[in-house]
């Protein structure tokens, strides 16, 4: 939420007619610019953005820094391509425009789209960079479009002389399936310094991806439609990975430690049950080991260690993305703001819930004694019920 005045320098030279970024380089650039404007004004309502073009007849300032998004977007219409880009002059004029910003408390930033070959020498660019650094202006460079020998080096040199404490960034974008704006969304150009993905960026990513290109959301959930869910899924996946490593280490020690005979039997039964429950078994050996560890955890630490309980669930569902999704979604619905881990173990311990989950999985018969075994062994329900089920087992066993 840093208060910032930004000047965006657009390249509208002849090189922008090329179609290697769809639909044309210029259009991709324009989309990226409008997304950046939106992101900046949304992250702090007092932010201002201005635009200037670097090619054409000369440097032209289309909009001085303003917070009026409509004005900025409208001045992007009807831009003509032509001429050669003048990077040095563009940056200097952007700096001048920022100098005369109305709110002197705003940090100054210039975003440059460098799509055509750069005719300046490295030395000249470094001098410009030093001047920007001296006046504490940050610079973001988007290197796209024309690939020329020495262009990345020149731009990196420019960045090096401007950069003060990592406030300036450079992004090299190669032509690909993804639109320029999609690539930029995940970069610091959009997200700012150390802020992490902004909600606008996630929403913009969704909107852009909805256009038909392959969306690479981690969970198949559109953050635009349900941002809370997407966030929860992402967070729990990360937690799961972290706990997995910790728990796997712990479980390995414990699994080797516990040697009880009667626990070996239900353990292998439940192991079979959960192995049949999880359909996609990429590597059976790893699956069984993981499950063994997972169940060992649940055996040894029934319900008390909530983090282990959480890990158990996550391990068991490691290879089954859909199962993980289903569990997380139902937990998300069930307990919004209560402390997740304790609820998770409670939910896992709820037999009716677990049986409904398992019944929804193809290939698992809830009346299978093995499955009943697994359910009975779950923590959360009282120990007496567990014993009762174990007593009933010999009767139910066919």
């Amino acid at each position, binding site marked *: 939420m840093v208060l910032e005045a930004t000047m965006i320098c657009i390249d509208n030279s002849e090189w922008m007619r090329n179609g290697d970024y769809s639909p044309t380089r210029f259009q991709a650039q324009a989309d990226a610019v409008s997304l950046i404007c939106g992101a900046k004004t949304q992250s702090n309502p007092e932010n201002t953005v201005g635009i200037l073009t670097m090619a054409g007849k000369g440097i032209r300032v289309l909009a001085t820094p303003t917070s009026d998004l409509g004005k900025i977007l409208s001045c992007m219409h009807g831009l003509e391509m032509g001429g050669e880009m003048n990077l040095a002059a563009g940056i200097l004029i952007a700096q001048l425009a920022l*100098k005369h910003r109305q709110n002197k408390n705003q940090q100054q930033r210039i975003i440059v789209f460098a799509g055509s070959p750069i005719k300046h020498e490295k030395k000249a660019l470094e001098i410009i960079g030093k001047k920007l*650094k001296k006046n504490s202006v940050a610079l973001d460079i988007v290197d796209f479009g024309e690939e020329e020998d020495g262009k990345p080096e020149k731009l990196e040199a420019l960045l090096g002389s401007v950069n*003060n404490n990592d406030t300036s960034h450079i992004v090299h974008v190669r032509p690909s399936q993804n639109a320029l704006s999609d690539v930029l969304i995940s970069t610091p150009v959009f997200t700012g310094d150390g802020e992490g993905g902004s909600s606008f960026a996630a929403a913009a990513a969704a909107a852009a991806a909805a256009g038909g290109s392959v969306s690479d959301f981690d969970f198949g959930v559109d953050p635009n439609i349900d941002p809370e869910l997407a966030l929860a899924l992402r967070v729990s996946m990360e937690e799961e990975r972290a706990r997995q490593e910790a728990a796997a280490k712990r479980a390995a020690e414990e699994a080797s430690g516990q040697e009880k005979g009667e626990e070996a039997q239900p353990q292998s039964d439940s192991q079979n049950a959960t192995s049949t429950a999880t359909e996609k078994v990429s590597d059976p050996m790893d699956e069984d080991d993981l499950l063994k560890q997972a169940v060992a955890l649940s055996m040894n630490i029934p319900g008390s260690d909530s983090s282990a309980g959480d890990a158990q669930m996550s391990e068991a569902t490691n290879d089954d993305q859909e199962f993980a999704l289903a569990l997380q979604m139902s937990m998300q619905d069930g307990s919004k703001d209560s402390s997740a881990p304790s609820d998770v173990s409670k939910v896992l311990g709820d037999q009716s819930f677990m049986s409904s989950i398992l019944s929804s999985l193809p290939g698992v018969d809830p009346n299978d004694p093995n499955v009943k075994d697994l359910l009975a062994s779950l923590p959360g329900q009282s120990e007496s019920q567990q014993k009762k089920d174990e007593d009933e087992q010999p009767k139910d066993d066919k």
Partner: protein
Amino acid sequence: MACTHDHSCEDHDCSSNWSLYKHIDLSKVTALNEANPGSVKSVFKAWEERLNSSGEHLESNEGDPELLVYIPFTSDVKIKSISVVGGADGTSPSKLRVFINRDGIDFSDAQSMQPVQEWDLVENLQGVLEYQTRYSKFQSVANITLHFPESFGGDTTQIHYIGFKGEATQLKRDVVATIVYEITPNPSDHKTRAETGGLSHVE
């Protein structure tokens, strides 16, 4: 005057004269061309600590000894004199130009504008020298900008301490911060002197 007299300073409290640092709005102090962002705040301290260089100090970027320091005060102050302690080996600033009550000055402005006053500094490593101001021009200072254009030959400029001697008024130069607007007047707020105790009535 400066403590160059040969008795020790316990007789009169020199430090109380240099107490304007308490009226500096430290959160809004900025500097241009500083090597470590934020290090400028470390140069404003008590008189006794002016030679204490164990903490941070303000240093300009490598190869460029120019520095610009913007200092806003929490209330209007009158500045009688300024003291600057620089660094050793030619890293002390050699000139000082000040601008009053202008914000948003950058290097090109500073170089082209006429300063309110400028001084040629000498190396003041003991912090005993002070530079007097033309007091009439420094009567109500809400913010001051110090421009150090060059050093004594060093690659960078280092500043360990900046002190201001003067007095603080209770006035603030800019817009009133809290204004209470009345939608409907409350008669009890508008009792005239003659009527306290009786029925109040709004004129």
